[in-house]
Every structure is written in structure tokens, then in C-alpha cells.
């Protein structure tokens, strides 16, 4: 399964996480973001609006993204976070690292400031 990635600007890419990000497709997610990281993108918005499943391996792949871009002051934002994803975010306290926004548009506006 591939992930839908939309280039919002030369600096920002929006990845639609879709129904699930788990141990079965975490490598596909990594391949998706790596392509954009290699092109110099350092701001990523993850759209969780349809996401029913985020497991520890999926979350680990997001940490990989964060580690890839954080040396260059890159940012990862969570947008439109669904309830199952919110449970994982709260349990792991990853809200300390990844800012959350009520919508993709709100995240885009924050990145544009």
C-alpha cells in the first residue's frame, strides 16, 4: 500500500495516512516520506482524519521521520487526529514532540507563519 502525499509548497508535504499505519505498512510510509526528505522537504503534515489504526511500529516510523528532519529544524504536525490515534498519542506522550492541529489547513497556516 502506498501513501497519498500532496506537495503543499516547496517546504511542506501533506501525507494522508489513510485507514492504518501499522507494522504491515510502516516500510511503505518510510519510503513515502524518504523520497520527499531526499528532495529537501523538512515540514510534514500527517492527516489522520480516516485513521482507525496507529500501532507502535507505525508510530516508530513517524519517529524515524522526525529523526531524519529534526537536525535541520524540520517539523512534523498531526492534523485532524481521530480518536484511536489520540489514544496512542496520549499514551506515548508524543504530543510533546508533534504539534496537533484540528485540520490540515490549520497546520498549513501554522507552518506558513
Amino acid at each position, binding site marked *: 500500500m502506498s501513501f497519498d502525499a500532496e506537495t503543499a509548497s516547496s517546504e511542506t508535504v501533506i501525507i494522508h495516512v489513510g485507514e492504518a499505519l501499522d507494522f504491515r505498512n510502516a516500510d511503505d510510509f518510510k519510503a513515502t516520506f524518504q523520497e520527499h526528505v531526499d528532495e529537501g522537504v523538512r515540514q510534514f503534515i500527517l492527516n489522520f482524519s480516516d485513521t482507525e489504526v496507529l*500501532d507502535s511500529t507505525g508510530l*516508530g516510523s513517524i519517529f524515524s521521520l522526525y529523526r531524519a528532519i529534526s537536525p535541520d529544524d524540520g517539523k512534523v504536525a498531526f492534523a485532524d487526529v481521530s480518536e484511536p490515534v489520540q489514544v496512542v498519542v496520549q499514551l506515548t506522550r508524543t504530543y510533546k514532540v508533534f504539534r496537533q492541529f484540528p485540520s490540515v489547513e490549520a497546520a498549513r497556516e501554522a507552518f506558513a507563519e
Partner: protein
Amino acid sequence: MNPFTKTYTDLDCAIDEVRSLSDDWPPPAQNGTVDDETLHCMCLVLHEWIANLHQHAHFQNNTPRVEIRLTCNAEQVDCSVLDNSNGFDLASYLPTDDEDPEAFPERGMGLRIIEACTDELSYSPTEDGLHRFKFIIPSDHDPWLNTLF
């Protein structure tokens, strides 16, 4: 309240089905039921556990088999997962207090999540050579008090 019992020989199928249990089970409240947050935690724990079996367990030459049993009342959810793997020592894999809590590791967070969500966690051999993973989630359990970091 109706218990849930189902045996799977396809672990991918088991993972897909347990994630929908928060919508499909338990049936509408009769004598009270647990809240949505508890059910989401239950589904997350079952997903993490079966994913762990899927990725790491040794089934020798046998077809993997898991049997999931769930019961629920107003006080708690009781869960067990019986499997035919070789098993492992759960205690030796659980996170220790001296691990760096801010490391945000790429691997190994599944058992941390399981531990944070549950009470009375165990994984032990049965008399007939299988292994049983058991846990409860009380309705007043606050996983945020057990959060990982």
C-alpha cells in the same frame, strides 16, 4: 453481557477483526458497560499483542493459532489470548525504570503501551502446551497514570 470467543489461524485476519471490536462488541449496554476509551485501549492492546506474535513468535512448523476470549461488565473488561507458539518470558521484555523515557524508539514501544493500558498482565504456559496472555482493564483504570514517560 455476551462474551466474545473466536479462534483464528490467520493472524492478519485476527488483527483486522480485533480493531473493529470497539464498534462491534460489546453489544448495547444492558447492565452498564465500559466506556469507549477503555474499548479503544482493549483493541490497541490486542492489536499490539497479536502483531507481536505475528512478527516475533516461533510456531515451529505449526499453523499459527490464537483464540481470543473477552468478557465485559460495568466494572472491567477481561481478555485472554491463547496461542500455540513456543512462548517467551514476558517479564524479561517489559520496559525497565532505567530506560530512557524520552528516547522515542523506533521499536519496542508495543509492550510499553500494553503495560500502560492494562492491569494484572500475564503470559504463561498452559497445561496442554499452549500459552495464554491475560489482562484486565478496569473501568476506572486511568492509563494516563501509567503513561510511558
